[in-house]
């Protein structure tokens, strides 16, 4: 127990019991690997969050950054945060899956090393090479630098994308392989209950969701491979000119599917962890869950099309399909996952610890973002007014900061808290979520208001006629400061538990229980 904290009966750990499939040594290995991922992710978030501050201060005219620098930082912040939270979620998913199956620890370590190399290349490309085509590097902008970045920076950037793609492929295939060694793929996908006579599967819900999402994400990686190959063929001077509309479809397929998979995998973390915290039995895959996640799998694969609603050259039926799928996709999420979380909490007498509050708030954030994404981002008449304004930035930050990030922070705190065997102080249990919620929603609201006021996204400097963008960027500093305060308080609570958690992670489950 940490010094100076109230003496409370330590509740039964909900995360640390060892799964049957892994040995004591592997269990220790996965715990340490999870801590290493967590430390790396949080260090990256501190740096990337600071870049967010620099950009808003620049847009508020309180800091002078040359546009070349602004856009390098913007590329690093956007793509960096996007990838970092995917990695954070995958680290949590890997740990939770090791309770049921036996993932490869050596694959996990190799992926970590490869990720570090890839991230270093990304930093070199953006900060040294000033590579700055934005987080989705829309074709053919990487080839049109106007002298800001050199061809070597483009090459380093695409090497980074390739290495990260290989790392993610190894990670996903190794997890799917571990699942396949225990259950068949149709079983893990829930097809035995969906199309067979069984009403409940013996596959845990966490395994089912992970399987659906990882299979889906393999298709995203495939689109990235095609994209990268086409870029390379053009970049090495074969004389091939790529089709901009095809390239746009490929990059948005990859980006959108990855974002949706990140969100659904973070839901898996909630559905695995929250029943344990609420003292309810774990979920099993029944027809309802299997139907919901299989429908989500199909819908995610086509909802990316709503990113191309303002490309009138895109075939009309694809635009109609994109809008329709985007209107439908929140329905299985609302009717099944969000509804189930609410019924789980109702009357549960759950102890509202910091992880429980963060997980619950994260689900609420995803729910709010879901309807916004369906309505504003997928309606052509509204995209006509709001596409590529700061409304789009509001949507991205709402889904990630108030959804995926809160859920991940909830998981991480529970993990570190259990390892360090330390309780929370009651004021931080409430101060951290309150600061994060007011700051986060305030930040999103300022982006939304600016977007409705016609302020475009990705403007390093607002022109005179859009000076309201400067004013709103200045007002946005207040919620940004609250969000930062909440994040720093969270980090402090985590860092002071870290030495105990790190030391305890070396112990086997039985040693940890008796210590």
């Amino acid at each position, binding site marked *: 127990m940490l010094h100076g904290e109230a003496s409370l009966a330590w509740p039964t750990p909900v995360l640390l019991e060892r799964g049957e499939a892994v040995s004591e040594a592997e269990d220790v290995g996965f715990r340490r690997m999870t801590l290493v991922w967590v430390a790396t992710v949080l260090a990256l978030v501190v740096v990337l969050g600071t870049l967010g501050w620099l950009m808003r201060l620049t847009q508020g005219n309180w800091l002078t950054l040359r546009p070349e620098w602004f856009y390098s930082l913007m590329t690093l912040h956007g793509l960096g945060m996007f990838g970092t939270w995917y990695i954070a979620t995958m680290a949590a998913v890997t740990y939770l899956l090791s309770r049921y199956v036996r993932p490869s620890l050596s694959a996990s370590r190799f992926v970590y090393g490869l990720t570090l190399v890839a991230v270093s290349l990304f930093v070199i490309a953006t900060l040294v090479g000033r590579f700055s085509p934005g987080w989705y590097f829309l074709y053919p902008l990487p080839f049109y630098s106007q002298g800001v970045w050199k061809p070597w920076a483009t090459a380093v950037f695409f090497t980074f994308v390739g290495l990260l793609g290989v790392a993610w492929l190894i990670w996903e295939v190794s997890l799917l392989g571990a699942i396949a060694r225990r259950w068949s793929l149709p079983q893990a996908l829930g097809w035995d209950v969906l199309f067979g006579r069984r009403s409940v599967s013996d596959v845990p819900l966490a395994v089912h969701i992970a399987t659906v999402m990882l299979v889906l994400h393999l298709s995203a990686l495939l689109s990235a491979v095609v994209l990268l190959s086409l870029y390379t063929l053009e970049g090495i001077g074969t004389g091939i000119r790529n089709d901009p509309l095809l390239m746009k479809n490929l990059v948005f397929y990859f980006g959108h599917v990855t974002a949706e998979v990140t969100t659904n995998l973070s839901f898996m973390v909630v559905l695995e962890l929250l029943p344990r915290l609420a003292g309810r039995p774990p979920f099993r895959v029944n027809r309802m869950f299997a139907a919901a996640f299989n429908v989500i799998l199909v819908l995610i694969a086509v909802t990316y099309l709503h990113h191309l609603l303002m490309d009138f050259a895109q075939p009309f039926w694809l635009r109609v399909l994109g809008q329709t799928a985007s209107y439908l996709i929140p329905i299985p999420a609302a009717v099944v996952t969000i*509804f189930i979380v609410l019924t789980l909490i109702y009357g549960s007498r759950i102890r509202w610890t910091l992880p429980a509050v963060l997980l619950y708030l994260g689900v609420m954030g995803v729910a709010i973002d879901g309807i916004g994404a369906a309505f504003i981002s997928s309606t052509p008449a509204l995209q006509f007014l*709001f596409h590529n304004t700061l409304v789009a930035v509001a949507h991205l930050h709402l889904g990630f900061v108030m959804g995926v990030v809160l859920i991940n922070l909830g998981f991480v705190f529970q993990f570190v808290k259990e390892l360090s065997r330390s309780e929370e102080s009651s004021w931080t249990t409430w101060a951290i979520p309150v600061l994060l919620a007011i700051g986060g929603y305030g930040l999103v609201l300022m982006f939304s208001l600016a977007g409705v006021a016609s302020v475009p996204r*990705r403007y390093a400097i607002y022109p005179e006629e859009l000076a309201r963008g400067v004013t709103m960027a200045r007002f946005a500093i207040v919620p940004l400061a609250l969000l930062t305060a909440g994040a720093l308080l969270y980090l402090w609570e985590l860092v002071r538990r870290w030495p105990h958690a790190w030391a305890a992670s070396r112990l086997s489950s039985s040693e940890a229980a008796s210590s």
Partner: protein
Amino acid sequence: MDRVTPVLLLEVASAGIVLVFAYVALRSRRAGAVVPSRARRLQVGLLVGLLGFAGLLLAFTFPRAPYPRRAERPDRVVFVVGKQFSFAVSERPITNDSEWQEAVAFGEPVTLAPGELVEFRVTSFDVNHGLSLYDPDHVLIGQVQAMPGYVNRLRFRFTKPGRYEVLCLEYCGHGHPRMRGYFFVK
């Protein structure tokens, strides 16, 4: 479409979600569980309600999509070509870089009449750009992507006279915020 009403409706829906979550969190203090049959009825009701609502919303928004209709004939055609970092706006087709340079540097400003149906034929000579229409009060009233190799047709009927600015709405490089074009409605 009115720009504020949809956002307000969304805020109201978001507030509704917050209230539901707050209510359930408060009800977590009293022991008990949702009766399964009641939960199932609620779930089915939610499913039917949301499907119906999505259907209605699709029926309402499809006809309001800003896409050109085949039956309509534009009164005027305006050619717009984006290139790092300017828009050329012209009543004559622009087919190569020198025509683009001439249109940007020396082209006569395009002047449109209020009420006429204008078709913008929009493309790019380098990277993706975003053609946006900012009215004389600097309010964004419409947009379409400018993509190399493709022509996007945007039709619009202007009512307010004055100078309209064309800003770039797709990030296109370090000069993105200063990329401009313009025309008049008189």
